């Protein structure tokens, strides 16, 4: 195969061509934690018809490109999200829905819901709103496509480079041995 030559893969021009095709075929894995999961069926089906952008749902993380965090994320599901994210093949992108993964949203004082997802996973795009309407979701997806085409959506590379930092933050929440207060 042509792709097997790493020298060519590193070539920027070749990467650009790949990015052009990648943005046209995004398979998403939606991890339905919060209320944003309700907004996805209308986005997928005939009314807003996500498939015209070449996006579709995928059943397994190993074949998906996009991880959608649809709303608030409790500590217990954060662990599963990290498992899922690390199973996904590169290139991979994370989209966070609504205000909860940005600053906690209405769960800002909850003892079991994380406040900012970007501390634990590299978030490529946050869609604001509580919850975002399908129009906002489509808008976010097109923004992500543009970023992919320009080669700006490099969350997965950031995750690899700053792996220790992310792991440290994850361990602080998941494997704590002492009380917080």
């Amino acid at each position, binding site marked *: 195969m042509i792709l097997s030559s790493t020298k060519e893969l590193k070539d920027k021009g070749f990467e650009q061509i790949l990015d052009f095709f990648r943005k046209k075929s995004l398979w998403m894995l939606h991890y339905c934690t919060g209320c944003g999961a309700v907004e996805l069926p209308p986005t997928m089906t005939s009314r807003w018809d996500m498939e015209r952008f070449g996006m579709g749902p995928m059943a397994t993380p190993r074949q998906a490109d996009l991880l959608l965090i649809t709303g608030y994320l409790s500590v217990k599901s954060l662990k599963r999200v990290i498992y899922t994210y690390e199973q996904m093949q590169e290139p991979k992108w994370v989209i966070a829905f609504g205000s909860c993964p940005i600053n*906690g949203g209405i769960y800002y004082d909850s*003892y079991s819901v994380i*406040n900012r997802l970007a501390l634990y996973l590299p978030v490529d795009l946050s869609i604001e709103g509580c919850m975002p309407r399908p129009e906002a979701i489509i808008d976010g997806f097109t923004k992500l496509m543009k970023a992919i085409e320009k080669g700006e959506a490099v969350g997965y590379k950031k995750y690899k480079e700053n792996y220790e930092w992310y792991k440290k933050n994850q361990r602080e*929440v998941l494997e*704590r*041995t002492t009380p917080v207060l």
Partner: protein
Amino acid sequence: MEQKELIEHIEKNFKYKKEIKVIDGKQFTITVEKDKVLNLLSFLKLIDFKQLALITAVDWIDEKKFEIVYILFSYSHIQQILVKTFVDRDNPQVETVKNLWDVASMYERDVHEFFGIDFIGNDDLRPLILHNWKDLPPLRKDFDSLKYSNKMFGKFKKDEEI
């Protein structure tokens, strides 16, 4: 039985100290001493209150007491009874009811995790919902949830960058 007959029946046949209060046509509360809960619950089970809908607790921090609430339902009387009892907040212990209803063992695990109440006789009080919890039980009133959240998950303002 109608609610009135039911209350009369309980007044007549359950001799221990109790306080009955009607909430509305479908439900009423019975408050008893801590060590008479098991007697009352088994008595109520005999008069066809077969379903234990929930065990939960209320933290009365000013009175230094936990209130434990057992919600029972009867399909034949169409009545709901809230059996209440108070335990000391510093040493919260109460007898388990898992021998009357199997489902109680799950509710007791839940109450133990969120309020720290011990159920004597229930040997399976492992954590159920929370992940790796090391602090005070979170639904106690002296647990500061906002402080915990800010310290554990960080405090973020609108325009802050990481």
